[in-house]
């Protein structure tokens, strides 16, 4: 296990009340890698992703992002919870894209992208505006800067959400089923933006049902079921030649 891993999850456990959702998940994602997460509904994919930026608190195990322990500080063999401010600081370098976009509907597209850099990092507004415009141009939405999210199509909204996350210059991007709320003909435009990001060397963890995307862009694929990683490896191999029965059954249904 290398010290340079971007994400290192060790034996992650998470329960909601008496329901144990994650039962010991291990994962290493190297810098620049694209890791795709596959698995049936309810297997804990979203929960695991949300643990990585501490939207959910772990019950056991550790998650390190770029060497930093997420959500806690280890001192004298004891774990101390981080203050809310420190958690917020850790989240700045982790971008997240949600299934339902979650754009801020009361702000224009440009303000959505500028909000966090201006408020959180207190960067110069003029610079942020330029960067935000450039990011929106990159995701193909230069013409929409003054629109409100409600005026955009789903695919456009999701591309804004990606630009919004990128505006914080994250070193890691988390995607939770970014295309599953979209009409089929809009999926492509979002995947194209993500492929572009992957080519630029962004480290990404992507929960997705797009097998084609996983095969083409992914460096690693993990298959989760029942709160554990059942199988992992290079996407082409796992998809073409799954070793586990559960993986075979799942792939048989989605392919």
């Amino acid at each position, binding site marked *: 296990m290398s010290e340079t891993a971007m994400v290192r999850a060790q034996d992650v456990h998470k329960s909601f009340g008496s329901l144990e959702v994650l039962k010991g998940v291990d994962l290493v994602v190297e810098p620049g890698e694209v890791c795709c997460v596959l698995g049936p509904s309810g297997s804990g994919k979203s929960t695991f992703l949300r643990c990585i930026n501490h939207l959910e608190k772990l019950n056991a195990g550790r998650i390190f992002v770029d060497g930093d322990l997420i959500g806690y500080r280890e001192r004298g063999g004891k774990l101390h919870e981080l203050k809310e401010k420190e958690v*917020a600081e850790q989240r700045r370098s982790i971008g997240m894209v949600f299934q*339902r976009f*979650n754009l*801020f509907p009361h702000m224009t597209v440009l303000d959505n992208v500028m909000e966090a850099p201006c*408020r959180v990092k207190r960067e110069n507004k003029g610079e942020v505006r330029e960067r935000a415009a450039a990011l929106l141009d990159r995701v193909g939405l230069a013409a929409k800067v003054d629109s*409100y999210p409600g005026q955009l199509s789903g695919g456009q909204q999701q591309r804004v959400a990606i630009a919004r996350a990128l505006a914080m210059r994250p070193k890691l991007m988390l995607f939770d089923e970014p295309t599953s709320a979209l009409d089929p003909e809009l999926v492509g435009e979002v995947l194209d933006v993500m492929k572009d990001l992957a080519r630029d060397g962004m480290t990404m963890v992507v929960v997705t049902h797009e097998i084609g995307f996983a095969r083409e862009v992914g460096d690693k694929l993990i298959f989760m079921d029942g709160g554990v990683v059942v199988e992992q490896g290079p996407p082409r191999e796992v998809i073409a030649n799954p070793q586990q029965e559960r993986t075979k059954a799942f792939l048989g249904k989605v392919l």
Partner: protein
Amino acid sequence: MTEQTPTERARPEAIKAVPVRHPGRWITIAVLAVLAAMFVHLVVTNDQFNWRFIFVSIGEGRRGVMFTGPVLAGLRGTILLTVLSMIIGVALGVVIAVMRLSPNPLLSWVAWLYTWVFRAVPRLVLAILFGNLGILWERIGFGLPFDAQIGRLFGITDLNAQFFSIKATDLLSGFVAGMLALGLSEAAYMAEIVRAGIQSVDSGQSEAAAALGLSRGQVLRRIVLPQAMRVIVPPTGNETIAMVKDTSLVAFVPVSTELFFQLQAISSRTFIVLPVLVAACLWYLVLCSVLMVVQFFVERHFGRGYGARTRTRTRTRNAQRRQEVNP
């Protein structure tokens, strides 16, 4: 067989249909017009209303009762009282709503207790109570808590560790007492309105904001509250208009610089009752109309990004901009 492409096909004739008639509407309009005319006739011809007394003058060289000095001063008092107690109510209401939703159980419980007490006590009772607080405590001060008791503990009988204190009747002049009574009571109602507003915002919003690294305060101020305003504003408009009328309760504190008190004083002096009441109604009508206009604009401000209005506006703006770029 040749296939026609859409461009070759002639555009069909525009529809010119006979619209559906609505005879019911015309009948309703006629009936309402007659009723309205009857009402106006009744009001104008009945001398008991004494419109001259209301609008023009009581006697030579004097103004109508609506515009006499004391009434205008009372009007100013009513407006001031409404504005100040609503400011207290909204500000404190937001604080209490946030406390109520806080993960800290003590804060949440204190907020619940506040709402419970201040919603239970009638405003009139509260107003009279605040007017008479001087009976309960002679002086109100700021300093070491429990100073007298601590002093006794150490054998000092008259320890006074107050930085400053003031006679209760000075601090709680009628106006301040009335303002506090109305404001504190309003805060309890506003707290519930704000809480409903905050809870109406999708939890995905605060999650997305938190994931971007915004602090909890920033999430509340920048993301949640602005969206909650859409739900908060209409009932707040209700509350403000109710407050305009509830200011008449402080006449019992007693506060004299208040519209209703002044008009009543005139009616008991002149024994002209009904026109004075009508004058009061007219002023309240004017105030509420102004508030409704204000509410319209506030609602439009917080509705941006939602309604069809902003949609068409930005669209035309963008279209204009595009034309400017490539004419």
